[in-house]
C-alpha cells in the first residue's frame, strides 16, 4: 500500500515535469526563426505551396491551440511525423518541392523506437566497462584513505574527467581501427562496433563512480558495525563485500539518477563520432536539419526515461537498504 502511494505520487510528479518539458521545448521551437513549412517544401517552392503546407500542418493556428493538439496526439501515442526523413530511410535534403517521395514522412515514434535498442546496448556496455574499471580503484581507495591507492584513484579520476571524449574517440579510432586494425569504429554492422564507443563512454562515466565509491566506502568503514563485524568473527572479504560495498552502493545508485543527463550528453557526441546509428545521432542530425518533430519527440522521450530511472533508483535503493523511506 505504501509502495502504491509512492508510485502514484512520483508518477504524478513525473507527469507534471514532462508536461513542463513538453511545453518548454514546443514553445522554444515555435518562437525561434525559421518557418517549418518553408523548410519542408524547400527553398525553391512557390509561396502558395508553403502556405498550403503550413495550413496542412496547422502552423497557422495560435501556439496554445497547436500545443493542445500536439498533447492530444501524444496521448494517442503519436509523436508526429519527421519533416525530412521519408519512411524509406534516405534523407530528402534539398530535393524539389514536387518530388513524390516527400509525401511519405517517417513517424517520429517509430524512428525513436528503432534507434533505442542500439543506444541501450551502447549505454549498457559502457556502464559495464565503467564498473569494471572503477570498482577496483574506488574500493581500494576507500579502504586505504590517504595511502597510494587513494592518490592513484584521485589522479586517475582527475585525468579521466579531463579527457575530451570526442578527441579520445578520434584518437582511439585512429589507433585501433586504422593503425592496428583490431576493432571497427564506423557505423554498425555487429556487436564489435559497440566496443570502442562504449569504452570512450566508460572513460567519461568512471571518474564519478570512482569518486563516489571511494568517498562512501571510506565513510562506511568508519561506522561502528564494521568494527563490530570483525569482533563477530567475520572475514575481511565478507565485511567489505557484504557490508561496506552494499552500503556504499546507495550513493552510487543515486549518482546514476543524477548523472543521467551528463551521460546522455556524452552518448550523443560518442554516437556522432563513431557514426553509431543510435538515438544520439538521430538527435544531432535532427537539430542540424531543424527537424522539429524529432527534436520534440526525443526531448520528451529522454525526459520520460529520466523520470522513470529516478523512480527506479529510489525503489532499488530502498530494496538494498530497507531503512530508507520511499
Amino acid at each position, binding site marked *: 500500500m505504501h509502495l502504491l502511494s509512492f508510485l502514484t505520487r512520483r508518477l504524478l510528479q513525473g507527469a507534471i515535469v514532462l508536461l513542463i518539458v513538453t511545453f518548454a521545448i514546443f514553445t522554444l521551437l515555435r518562437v525561434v526563426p525559421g518557418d517549418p513549412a518553408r523548410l519542408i517544401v524547400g527553398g525553391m517552392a512557390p509561396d502558395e505551396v508553403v502556405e498550403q503546407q503550413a495550413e496542412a500542418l496547422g502552423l497557422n493556428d495560435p501556439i496554445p491551440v497547436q500545443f493542445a493538439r500536439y498533447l492530444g496526439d501524444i496521448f494517442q501515442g503519436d509523436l508526429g511525423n519527421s519533416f525530412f526523413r521519408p519512411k524509406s530511410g534516405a534523407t530528402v535534403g534539398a530535393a524539389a518541392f514536387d518530388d513524390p517521395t516527400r509525401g511519405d514522412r517517417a513517424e517520429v515514434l517509430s524512428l525513436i523506437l528503432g534507434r533505442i535498442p542500439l543506444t541501450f546496448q551502447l549505454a549498457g556496455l559502457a556502464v559495464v566497462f565503467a564498473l569494471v574499471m572503477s570498482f577496483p580503484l574506488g574500493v581500494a581507495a576507500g579502504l586505504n584513505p590517504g595511502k597510494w591507492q587513494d592518490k592513484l584513484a584521485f589522479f586517475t579520476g582527475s585525468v579521466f574527467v*579531463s579527457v575530451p571524449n*570526442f578527441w579520445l574517440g578520434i584518437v582511439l579510432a585512429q589507433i585501433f581501427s586504422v593503425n592496428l586494425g583490431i576493432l571497427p569504429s564506423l557505423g554498425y554492422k555487429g556487436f564489435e562496433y559497440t566496443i570502442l564507443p562504449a569504452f570512450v563512454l566508460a572513460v567519461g562515466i568512471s571518474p564519478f563512480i570512482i569518486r563516489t565509491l571511494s568517498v562512501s566506502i571510506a565513510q562506511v568503514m568508519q561506522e561502528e558495525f564494521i568494527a563490530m563485524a570483525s569482533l563477530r568473527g567475520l572475514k575481511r572479504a565478507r565485511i567489505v563485500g557484504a557490508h561496506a560495498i552494499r552500503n556504499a552502493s546507495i550513493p552510487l545508485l543515486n549518482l546514476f539518477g543524477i548523472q543521467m543527463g551528463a551521460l546522455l550528453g556524452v552518448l550523443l557526441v560518442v554516437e556522432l563520432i563513431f557514426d553509431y546509428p543510435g538515438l544520439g545521432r538521430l538527435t544531432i542530425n535532427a537539430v542540424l536539419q531543424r527537424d522539429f518533430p524529432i527534436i520534440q519527440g526525443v526531448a520528451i522521450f529522454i525526459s520520460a526515461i529520466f523520470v522513470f530511472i529516478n523512480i527506479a533508483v529510489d525503489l532499488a535503493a530502498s530494496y538494498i537498504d530497507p531503512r530508507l523511506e520511499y
Partner: protein
Amino acid sequence: MTHIDSPLYQNNTGASALKTPTQRMLSEAWASLAFKFGLGIFMLLLFGALIYPELSSIDPTKIHIRARFVPPLFMGEDWSWAHPLGTDHLGRDLFLRCLVGLRYSVMIGVCTVIFMFILGCGLGLVSGFKGKLTDTIIMRITDAQLSIPMIILAITILGISRPTAPAIILVLGLAGWPLYARVARSAALSEKTKEYIKGQRVLGASDWRIITLFVAPAVLPPIAFVAVLDVAAIMIFESILGFIGLGIQPPTPTFGNIIADGRKYLINSWWIATMPGVFLLLTLVSLNLMGSAMENARNKVLKGTA
C-alpha cells in the same frame, strides 16, 4: 559553523582558530600537492595564452600554404622550431591556434560558471529562505530544467541562433544553473534555522537584508569551491560544441573546430587533431586537480576534520 565551541575550533591552536571557514578551506587546499601542481600548470598555460599571441609575429588565422603539414618538434622530417606543435592543412601554426583557443575556452568557461553561480545560487537562496509557494515554484522549474539534457537544449538553441561567445555563455549558463539552485537551497534551508538568523529577524531585518548580508556569505563560499570543477566541465562542453560546428565560428580558432578540421587529415597528419586535444587535456587536468583538491579541502573543513 560560527559557534566557538564547535569541534572545528578545538583541533586548531592559536591564530589559526581565528580564521574563517573559507580561509581554512583555502589553506587546506594549498597544503595539497595536487592543488599547487594544478595551479602551477594552469597559470603557466594561461600566462602563455595571454602573452605569446601578442608577442609572436605570426597571425593564428593567416594562411601560409607553403608551410602546411609541418609536423611537431622531433617528429617526421621537416619539423622546425618556428612551429613547436606543427602546422595544419592551411599552414597555420598549431601552437598559436591552441593558445588562442585556450583564451576563448577559459573565458567562456569562467564567464559561464559565474553566470550559472549567480543565477542558480540567487534563485536557490531565495527559494530555500522564503519557502512556501516561492520554493515550490522555483523547485519545480528546476526539476523540469534538470530533466532536459543540457546538450539537447544547447544544440537546439545554438543550432537555430548564431553561435557567438555571449550566446554560448548564455545557453550553457541557462542549462547549468539548476544544480547550483539545489545546492544553495539546501544550504539556505539549514542556515535559516540557526540562532543568529533568528536573532536578525527579532531585530527586524528584512528578508533581503538577511539573505544578502548573512545567509549568502555563510553559504556561498563552499559552493564556489566546487565551481572550479565546473569550469573544466564547461570547457569540455564548449569544445564539443565547437566540434559539432556550433561553437565560435571559424576562422577564430577554438579547440573544437581545430580538432574537427584536423579529423579530415588524420591519416597523413595525425598531429593536427591530436595536439590540440593534448593541449586541452593538459589544461583540464590542471583545472580538475585544482578543483578536486579544493573540493576535498572543503569537505574536510565542513566535516570538521581539519
